[in-house]
């Protein structure tokens, strides 16, 4: 009969429509719960799947690739605090398909000979195609793909070429966003330390590698919340419970940022708020408070 096909189709639309409301009733008041979220994003779900960005975001998987960052030792590392992992070997600059990595090789001021750390390191994030080759080919695990995709800024001509300062992040950040991969890499390096550091330690008669960011000499390191660690404050040092909730930390930053620039950095005033252009994007984000919802 003419029209049955259309009716059948409308039946499908209607089914979708109804399941969404059934879901809504079923999860009344629990809409933002993690289990509900996980169910809705799973294969078993039949209702509406929309993720309400930015009130909720899909955390990205470990291998996710976004503009790379440079790995450094933790700022509170008892022996190598803040030391770069990059040896300025230049491999990443050579493999980079769009050629968006610029490296100034370091030179020893006394001898004038090249030394294995970069004096400057630039990535033009407008050009970077997030291919991940730099991370794949770096022989020292010194450059890794980031997970922070919220990089919007106000001025492309100055803000989009990231320099070494902006690119550098502590190794604990990498361990927190990609625990499995970081563990695999540690195993391949046969220890926590950078391969070159391991060689140096061996030469000096120390154990080739420490098991973690603790000193052989002073087994109890002081845990300092170093200023640069603010960028990674909500990233836990160890791969912990999947549900890290960075919201309180963010509110604290926000409260502190109302009347004057709260600290060093590139601060501008936007409306009533101070924004640090140097800070990673998550610090700038506001969550919608319960009142506004």
């Amino acid at each position, binding site marked *: 009969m003419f029209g049955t*096909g259309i009716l059948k189709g409308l039946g499908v639309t209607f089914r979708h429509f109804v399941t969404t409301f059934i879901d809504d009733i079923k999860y009344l008041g629990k809409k933002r719960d993690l289990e509900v979220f996980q169910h809705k994003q799973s294969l078993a779900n039949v209702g509406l799947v929309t993720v309400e960005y930015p009130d909720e975001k899909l955390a990205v998987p*470990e291998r996710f690739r976004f503009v790379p960052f440079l790995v450094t030792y933790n700022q509170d590392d008892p022996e190598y605090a803040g030391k770069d992992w990059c040896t300025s070997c230049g491999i990443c*600059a050579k493999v980079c398909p769009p050629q968006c990595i610029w490296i100034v090789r370091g030179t020893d001021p006394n001898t004038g000979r090249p030394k294995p750390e970069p004096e400057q390191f630039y990535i033009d994030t407008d050009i970077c195609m997030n291919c991940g080759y730099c991370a794949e080919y770096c022989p020292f695990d010194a450059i890794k793909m980031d997970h922070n995709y919220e990089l919007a800024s106000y001025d492309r001509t100055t803000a989009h070429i990231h320099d070494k300062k902006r690119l550098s992040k502590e190794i604990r950040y990498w361990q927190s966003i990609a625990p499995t991969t970081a563990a695999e890499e540690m195993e391949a390096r046969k220890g926590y330390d950078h391969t070159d550091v391991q060689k140096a330690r061996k030469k000096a008669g120390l154990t080739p590698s420490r098991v973690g960011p603790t000193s052989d000499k002073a087994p109890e390191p002081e845990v300092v919340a170093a200023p640069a660690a603010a960028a990674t404050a909500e990233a836990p040092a160890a791969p912990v419970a999947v549900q890290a909730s960075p919201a309180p930390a963010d509110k604290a930053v926000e409260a502190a940022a109302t009347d004057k620039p709260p600290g060093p950095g590139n601060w501008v005033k936007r409306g009533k708020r101070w924004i640090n252009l140097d800070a990673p994007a998550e610090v700038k984000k506001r969550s919608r408070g319960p009142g506004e919802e």
Partner: protein
Amino acid sequence: MSDQVQNPVLDASGVADALVQRFPDAVKKDTRKGYEGVIIDHHKLLEVAGAIRDDYGFNYLSSLTAVDYLGMGDHMEVVYHAFRVPTGGAPLVFKAQTDRVEPTIPSLVKVYPGADFQEREAYDLYGIYFPGHPNLKRILLWDGFEGHPMRKDWKEAYYEQEHKPFDSRWPGGNVFRGEEHNPFGHNVRYPAGFNLDNFTPQTEAQFQSEMSLGVDIMGDPAFTNERLLVNLGPHHPSTHGVFRMMVQLNGETIESLEPVMGYLHRNHEKIGERNTWFGNMPFTDRLDYLSSMGNNLGYALAVEKLLGSQVKIPYRAEVIRVLMAELTRITNHLWAIGFLLNDLGAFFTPALYCIQTREYILDFFEATAGSRMMCNYMRFGGVFKDLPERIRAEALLLNDKVRDMDTMQYLKDLITERIPRSIDELDEYLSDSEIIASRCIGVGVLPADVAIANSAAGPLLRASGVPYDLRRALPYSIYPELEFDVVTRPNGDLLDRYFVRLDEMRESVRILKQILPLLEKTKGESIFGGKTSYSIKAPAGESYGMVENPKGELGYYVVSDGGGNPWRYHVRAPSFINLTTLGLMAKGHKVADVVAILGGIDIVLGETDR
């Protein structure tokens, strides 16, 4: 065609020998190391090509492209790859050479109408003249473009160095942005005597003169008719990207249509020739960005062929490659069907149902390859990384919510339950709909012989009743081991294209179900058997690697001079070549149908314009 029966057993190399014997003064073997096929004297090209088509059955001109051998014999070469459709088998490669100054090669459009756009492309990018071509003008670039950019001596505005890696990056990385050296407004060159102020594009001028436009129509009683020249696009939201169709209408009926493209042109091939071999892999993602895994695979196959014994692809890598390729086919067809309905006016409801299912597959890609669409997953000799144990995330940004799933379980549920459910639902939703039937049946009909002659590929070809699928016709990877059928439909209209896509998804699910146990079986085995070095060199020679991508045959023609960069890197883009048939299919239909016909071809502009 009678001789075709006499030579049924000759394969491509046998035909090459036969051609040398039959045309001793016009055809000779290509004896350069690493090359194959025959070189045909271009004075006799038409005659020999006619014989190749009619007497030897190579009736399908898959790829036509040019190579500039500057400094390597200083000649231009046009390379043809012809297939037997639907018989299958290896392509016959034939070439014609010409001088670099005023290069001229007779047009093959009369023998193979599918050469139309490809010859225009070669003219556009290399400046080779094809006498006999009915409509020889630029196709990807505009008329005010100076020079022919694929020529080896042509340099782009932001030219820095012949090959990557550029020396300025390390060790003295003095960072600059390209536009600082060559600011906007100074980075364009025009041909001598070109005047931008009274410039009319050639296509427009041609259309206008055909339609006697540009004269005072109102004042002339002879022109009081319903004829109109309409531009659909380039920013029409219903076309699939920045694509333009110049349509000549009589009332609402289309009299003729010409696609105008190139708005997204970035000279992918020139970038590819400046780039290193593996540096091109992430660029292939950006061709048909809806099926990047397939693009990766085609390029990997082409270069692996060149590398020969230097790479050995482990079995597990092949299994994973097929897994990815078939999942990609499903994502692509879901997208194509969803947007076909959009084009018919069912605004976004069907599309979103399709996209929802597609997202689950992209989630898997993201967890495995690191990106949803720009996968960059294949390597020469395997794949980037094995499947992860778990599809999991770590919270990082504010409001991040995490998921954690077992990968194999996820894949199993996806393949055996979720995707089939979605396909069935789509079937129930759309297949019987009277609206779709009335809009699609008999619209945009492409008869089988026209499809073959015009080098149509993929679902477009199979919906015209031609059972030709590279996975069967010239199998690669582990497809010979797998059981699946080549889907065809007889009528060659929009509805059949819809059904071919639907059924191909079902066949893909069938393949994937066979892949699952293979994945379990090969767990823990190696996934990479190539070189890990960051600077690979390929032995001199040519190779043509092709895959049956969701949109049709995707081919990569690469030539190596033995160095670390491709000498020639050409993409045979199905989206581009399938458009050859658009004008034919649209003729006589109403203007409202033309967008749906375009949707039925299923193009992606990243690949069309390259």
